[in-house]
């Protein structure tokens, strides 16, 4: 199994970490990555919508309904114009913008600001 294109997480300033490279992303879909935070490592899901107003999103990879780490493997799309990901297990929709679950008001995924820096993908902790 190859991980040739994956860059090891490196902290270049205290707040913007490089989490992976652009080549690690999949167009119109998600991948999972580890993020080092002050509270320890967190699994995040990174979604890439090339050509859209906001191209990159980072939300929790952990699915609060199934308790499995699978959000990055959901289908992305939009509902009434808001970009969402559907959990691959029980199909709830989460808004990519703020992690809000559309079927259950009380459930929200965490989100992180994320941007390209050349070929790098940088995330704000």
């Amino acid at each position, binding site marked *: *199994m*190859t*991980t040739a*294109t*994956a*860059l*090891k*997480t490196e902290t270049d300033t205290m707040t913007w970490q490089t*989490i*992976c490279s652009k080549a*690690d992303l*999949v*167009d*119109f*879909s998600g*991948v*999972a*990555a*580890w993020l080092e935070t002050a509270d320890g490592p967190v*699994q995040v899901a*990174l979604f890439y*919508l090339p050509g*859209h107003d906001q191209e990159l999103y980072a939300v929790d990879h*952990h699915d609060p309904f*199934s308790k*499995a*780490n*699978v959000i990055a*493997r*959901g*289908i*992305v*799309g*939009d*509902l*009434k*114009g808001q*970009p*969402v990901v*559907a959990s*691959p*297990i029980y*199909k709830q*929709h989460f808004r990519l913008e703020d992690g809000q679950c559309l079927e259950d008001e009380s459930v929200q995924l965490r989100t992180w600001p994320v941007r390209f820096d050349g070929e790098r993908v940088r995330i704000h902790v």
Partner: protein
Amino acid sequence: MTSTDKQRLIIIGNGMVGHHLVEQLVERDATTRYDITVFGEERHLAYDRVHLSEYFAGRDAQSLALSTSDYYAENDIALRLDEAVTAIDRDNSEIVTPLGRYPYDRLVLATGSYPFVPPIQGGDRPNCLVYRTLDDLDAIREAGRNANTGVVVGGGLLGLEAANALKGLDLDTAVVEFAPRLMPMQVDSEGGELLREKIEALGVQALTDRATQRIEDGEASYHRMVFQDDKVLETDLIVFSAGIRPRDELARACALEMGERGGVVIDDHCLTSDPAILAVGEVALWNDSIFGLVGPGYQMAKAAANTLTDGSERFQGADMSTKLKLLGVDVGAIGDAHGDRTPGARMYRYLDEIKQEYRKLVVSSDGKKLVGAMLVGDNSYYDTLMQYYSNGLELPDDPASLILPSSEGAPTLGPDALPDTATICSCHNVTKGAVCETLDAGATDLGAVKAETKASTGCGGCAALLKSVVDHELEARGVEVDQSICEHFAYTRQELYSIVQVEGIKTFSELLEKHGHGLGCDICKPAVASILASCFNEPITDAAHVPLQDTNDTFMANMQKNGTYSVVPRVPGGEITPDKLIVLGEVAKKYQLYTKITGGQRVDLFGAQLHDLPDIWQALIDAGFETGHAYGKATRTVKSCVGNTWCRYGVQDSVGMSQQIEHRYKGLRSPHKLKFAVSGCTRECAEAQSKDVGVIATEHGWNLYVCGNGGMRPRHAELFATDLDDETLFKYIDRFLMFYIRTADRLQRTSVWRENLEGGLDYLKAVIIEDSLGIAEELEQQMQTVIDTYECEWANTLNDPEKLKRFRSFVNDERPDPDIIMTSERGQLRPA
């Protein structure tokens, strides 16, 4: 009420009408006031006699049953089958059976009728049979085993149906009719002549004007029939179908009022001359008529249930118009089809000797009303004529236009032309007004109307009319019937399918750009992915397609509840070499996979982590396995029994056939998963009749069953075609599957698709077997494309480093997911 306060209600006869009465009583909660006991002489629970002939075409007693013993038990109704009532003791209000005497407060006769056997010398010889019950059919089948020829005495409706059955048993078949033409009750001499030509073209001899004098030993065959002019006919087997007579012997013996020619006299409430006793169905005589059809019987049952529960609905006579297909020939008769019951009636006739069609209109003397009609060869004219007839609609200026051929097909009457009193469904006596009422009460689709009114749940003949009325009325109410697949496309799946096919659109983004908007969603993306795969069969892991797939398809493995995946290699027909079996074991052991044998005759390996999938599949593919598509809405497995290679009962090589089928259709994507099975003989060990496509070996080839289902809503597959050779079998399956793929809704199994298919099985047969839409070749070609482009998608992925990148649990670390925790049970790992 305690049970002792209840009245005792006994129903004699558990046939179609007797059973319908029970249902009507249950619906009216009559079980709270009656202790109900039903006696049936036959050993079978009430079954669908109307479709009795399908018993020879492969349906079994169970699938013909109208109900279950559980239903009777749940509703506290005592069902005593195989126990005939031998007498009614009106003085003591008791009935008598060989097993005892039973008191009643109310009694219902639902004893039906028996086939009339004319008093012919020798008519009681062995192998002289009748055609009414399942046991009769068993006897005919048994006798047919040692016979080459069969004769049906009687050329009426049932006689022709019996002839069809004999033909189905591979007998040289003839029909002998006393009258000068076939179906003398329904058709005139022109119609009868045409019918004879059509039926003889199908290989059934039709001998009219023949009165059988006696039956004696034959020379070449078992019997010899001697006719009035001393002509003779030899045959091995004789089936009498010379009319029916009411089974009124119990009523006669206890001196109820009887008709001159038999039948128990009833009034509008179905009461006999003894107000404690009612009669319904074919044993009952109302207004001097016996009704030999199930529709009127059901209406009597309804009236009787009303009478027993103090309702007021009455039986008011019923229409005897019929349409049916006999030996593949359409025949229809409406009202006064001969025009001999209407003074001054005039006729229009149309005869086409080339296409062999005949139609006749009988109109009132002023030419304004339709009083009857007759159709031979094409029943598509029936529905409209029936509406003119039953609703007394004024005829158009040129009534002949209703029977003349036109390039648009049979004329239709718009649903708005029908008055509220128009009968839409005659089986359940549902009017247009009743349909409108359910819509006013909030029903918003066809399904709800069906559930509410029961319309279209009897013979099904009214399905098209009902749908057009419902659609029309919904539209009139401003209900927009929105069938868009989701907010991104204003199209149904079927429409998207044709857009993709016609415009040759090969990607989701192109489709979205041209015909949709937004980003798409988890409804339309997998649906379009499936359509694209059915049409072009490009690997689903290609960059353009992979974001559309459900996670199972993306990773070509089924995601389990803890985020791990299962691995299911294809084992065609369930046949596997010991070496391959060892590889499966070794791989499972190395990656610590939980191992289970599935119902689809292959092995499931559970608990693989995402990043291990490529290595696992590499090992499997090196050993000669292919992907099993267990993750996709696609061809799953072809189950088989061991067949004639080993089994002493087998008549064909079921394993060989199942492998051919599996290799042919592997990789085919469809609206839902597809399961197949092949059995080596009628014992059906592979349970093919529970599959989307089931194949059962016969002495002469293969019987094809379609649209079965296991799962939550089991459905028996229906017999579709018999004794096919290999090539025709594949041809029909190709066409069937592609037609389903084209026209089904997303996630619709073949069973549900079939139930919603207008025109039902006959329509499906017409499309697939007779190519009535002229698309058979196209369907076959499309299937050929899929077959030709098959590629194991796991092998494809393993050869492509870009695609393999997708199989990393995390893109920036090789750590496995620490939250996947396993525990051990019965010697294997399972999710904690």
